[in-house]
């Protein structure tokens, strides 16, 4: 009888538990969670804030599920890991031995790096509790400031505006979601945001969050140029950090997160990692990359589960994919799509880009911010529907689809399976409607060839 211990009750942990139970009916499975609720859909929190679903609805696994799979759930944060005796000590002093340990603790929002981050009115869209709190405060809030450059900040902006709060979005740079969008794409989103009554402040940086006279509630923010801006809510969406407290003082190897091999094993025997706190080898960038994405976490959890029951199976990281709906605009992001060097380089005078992105937002992947060398890009724009492709050699490596999503799934397939598009490339560079048509034709042909091949 093997003791499986899973730290973390998120997408990766729960998927691993499910896989383990399917393969090993006898094993003892325990999930340890720092949160007081059952497993919920973290991407779904944005829809809770939009009031499209209730906070209860976002719970994805009911108690019956845990009972049916004979999984014991312990609500107490894991504090200390002893790899010599193979034990994990929890905050409630309970000690749990393990034969196989999966660390799937995920990532948490980076706290506000300003003075006044502790004040009431500083909110995060990170946990179910935090979201409930955010909803309560938004009821009474009049004016909100949202800080951050990624999806989470945009989701928070949309949610606040939906709750009838006057919303101001503060951006450090001059482009919306600048790590992913190029100028035209940002313009489209800007238009949609204006329709939702969001005020966008470019090149604005907060220096301090100001408290009221008693010093317990937010009264406003002070900007870098010493201006004061009144508000009673400050939404922080500047990114997430993998939670590495548990492994900090152990021999487990960490880079930006826990480094794992293709079997999701860390460098310490019987310790596995998956999800937002695992750094997995990516075949496009040929580096270990961090994904903060639900589908990646599920796939990694599944792979970890299989390897934990002893069924050695190499995990091949797929192309990071996310589709989201922001301000009514459908956006699908696939693969390497860094827009910064879209313009032709002028004699090597391009600025050096930082290797590692400081703040990785929930719902994104480090791979998105990279670029292959050499590469070319193709672009098609038709009103609010755009399509940007990144091509390296004879292969597609990245795509960003805004609006019409009919080509999103074909593109993901072509990128993920590294299909040679040599004959298609001249047509893609034509851009415009020729790009879409030729791509659609190529996809139809590909689909037909597959249907013709007997399985």
């Amino acid at each position: 009888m093997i003791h499986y211990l899973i730290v973390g009750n998120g997408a990766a942990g729960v998927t691993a538990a499910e896989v383990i139970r399917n393969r090993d009916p006898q094993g003892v499975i325990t999930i340890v969670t720092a949160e007081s609720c059952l497993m919920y859909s973290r991407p779904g929190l944005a829809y809770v804030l939009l009031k499209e679903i209730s906070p209860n609805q976002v719970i994805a696994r009911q108690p019956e599920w845990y009972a049916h799979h004979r999984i014991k759930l312990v609500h107490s944060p894991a504090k200390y890991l002893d790899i010599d005796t193979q034990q994990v000590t929890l905050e409630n002093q309970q000690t749990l031995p393990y034969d196989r340990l999966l660390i799937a603790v995920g990532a948490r929002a980076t706290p506000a790096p300003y003075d006044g981050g502790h004040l009431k009115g500083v909110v995060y869209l990170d946990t179910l509790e935090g979201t409930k709190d955010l909803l309560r405060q938004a009821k009474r809030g009049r004016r909100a400031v949202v800080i951050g450059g990624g999806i989470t900040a945009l989701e928070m902006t949309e949610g606040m505006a939906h709750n009838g709060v006057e919303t101001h979005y503060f951006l450090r740079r001059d482009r919306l979601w600048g790590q992913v969008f190029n100028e035209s794409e940002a313009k489209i989103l800007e238009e949609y945001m204006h329709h939702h009554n969001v005020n966008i402040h470019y090149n604005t940086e907060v220096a301090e969050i100001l408290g009221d006279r008693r010093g317990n509630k937010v009264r406003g923010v002070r900007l870098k140029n010493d201006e004061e801006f009144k508000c009673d809510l400050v939404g922080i969406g500047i990114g997430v950090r993998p939670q590495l407290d548990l492994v900090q003082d152990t021999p487990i190897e960490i880079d930006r997160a826990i480094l794992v091999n293709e079997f999701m094993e860390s460098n310490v025997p019987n310790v596995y990692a998956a999800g937002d706190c695992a750094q997995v080898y990516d075949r496009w960038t040929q580096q270990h990359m961090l994904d903060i994405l639900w589908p990646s976490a599920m796939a990694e959890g599944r792979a970890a589960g299989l390897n934990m029951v002893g069924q050695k199976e190499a995990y091949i990281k797929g192309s990071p994919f996310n589709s989201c709906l922001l301000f009514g605009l459908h956006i699908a992001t696939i693969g390497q799509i860094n827009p910064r060097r879209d313009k032709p380089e002028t004699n090597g005078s391009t600025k050096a880009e930082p290797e590692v992105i400081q703040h990785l937002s929930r719902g994104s992947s480090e791979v998105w911010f990279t670029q292959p060398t050499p590469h070319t890009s193709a672009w098609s724009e038709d009103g609010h529907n755009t399509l940007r492709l990144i091509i390296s050699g004879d292969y597609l490596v990245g795509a960003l689809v805004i609006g019409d999503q009919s080509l999103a799934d074909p593109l993901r397939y072509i990128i993920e399976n590294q299909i040679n598009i040599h004959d298609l490339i001249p047509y893609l560079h034509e851009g415009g409607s020729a790009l879409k048509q030729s791509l659609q034709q190529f996809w139809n042909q590909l689909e037909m060839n597959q249907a013709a091949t007997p399985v």
Partner: protein
Amino acid sequence: MPLINFLQPLVQSLKLTTNGSDCPAKPLQMGRVVPDPNRCVQCGICEYNCPIGIPVRDYAHRGIPVDDHNCITCGQCVNVCPRGTLRWETKTHTLIADRFPTTVDPILYKKQEVPEKAL
């Protein structure tokens, strides 16, 4: 190949559609809802909006078509899904899909070997 020419319109009708475009305008049409487990984040908007209370999220999690005899095929779930997970499948391609089942269970789904990119 003449057989392929014959199959072409059928295969084209299998292409994925995103939110709503092929949804039935009124209930009681022939067809069913099919999820794409890769896109699903299990937020539960689908079952929250289902007038019958069918656990659409469970079907999406398992990656199998919503074959619930209570489904009135109103297309609500397809319309509300924020990530384009669900699509509408007509009776015609239900017949084809059942005849040639693809891998559906994401848990049991074995990842295909992907050829290494030529560098």
